[in-house]
């Protein structure tokens, strides 16, 4: 009888310690969720700032995916070249003249493979109407 009682007492403490561990785990999970939410909010705000900078830039900006398909064009791009995002999204932009293709591909390869940004590179592109820019 005494041993049974002792065992019950020991088990009681064990159960409470398990419950306490569960409470702490739930508390930690709640904190993680809140931290994740805060990070997500920050990232969303960062994305909004980034979009707003692109949209207000005077430079024509295009965002491609890694396969060279268009994801985004800025309003300045539309103003300069004539195409709207709806016409280009998920497509290749038909604005690189044959004479510029090799040099352009070299720059893109260098950027993807070595991360080298392109500076002072003069080139030309077609506009939607078929004329050259610049």
């Amino acid at each position: 009888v005494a041993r049974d009682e002792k065992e019950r007492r020991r088990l009681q403490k064990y159960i409470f310690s398990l419950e306490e561990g569960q409470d702490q785990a739930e508390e930690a999970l709640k904190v993680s969720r809140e931290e994740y939410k805060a990070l997500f909010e920050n990232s969303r705000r960062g994305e909004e700032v980034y979009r707003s900078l692109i949209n207000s830039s005077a430079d024509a900006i295009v965002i491609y995916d890694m396969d060279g398909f268009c994801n985004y064009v800025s309003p300045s791009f539309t103003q300069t070249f004539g195409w709207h995002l709806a016409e280009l999204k998920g497509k290749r932009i038909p604005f690189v003249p044959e004479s510029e293709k090799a040099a352009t591909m070299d720059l893109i390869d260098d950027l993807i493979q070595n991360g080298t940004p392109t500076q002072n590179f003069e080139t030309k592109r077609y506009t939607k109407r078929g004329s050259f820019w610049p």
Partner: protein
Amino acid sequence: VRSRNAKEGLAVSIGKILVVDDEEAIHFYLQRKFEKLGYSVCTAEDGQEALDKAFSERPDIILLDVKLPKLDGIEVCRRLKSSDMTKQIPIIILSAKAQSDEIAAGLEAGADRYLCKPVGFPDILKEIKAFDK
């Protein structure tokens, strides 16, 4: 879980709980859990302190261990149930003594419920809520 007079007996509005257990780990844990739920909690570690707190703190319910220093829980229960000042306070015995004669002794002393250790907190809470009107 055993009871003599089931739930048709005492019903009170429970705000304050007296937790009596000589094991610190147990009464600290129960205190934290009840306080998190908004209950006010007082604790006692021996039988004499349990009697003193029952009279001075006027808890709405008592969670009482049996094996206690100074005065055992059965005697504490008997004295509280024989006093006009405290007999209306529901007493739930929470004890590792689980033999039928031990349970009978607790209920004969006037305990309203008898819980055998080990028991999880949700079950203890359920028993306490059963007295909450």
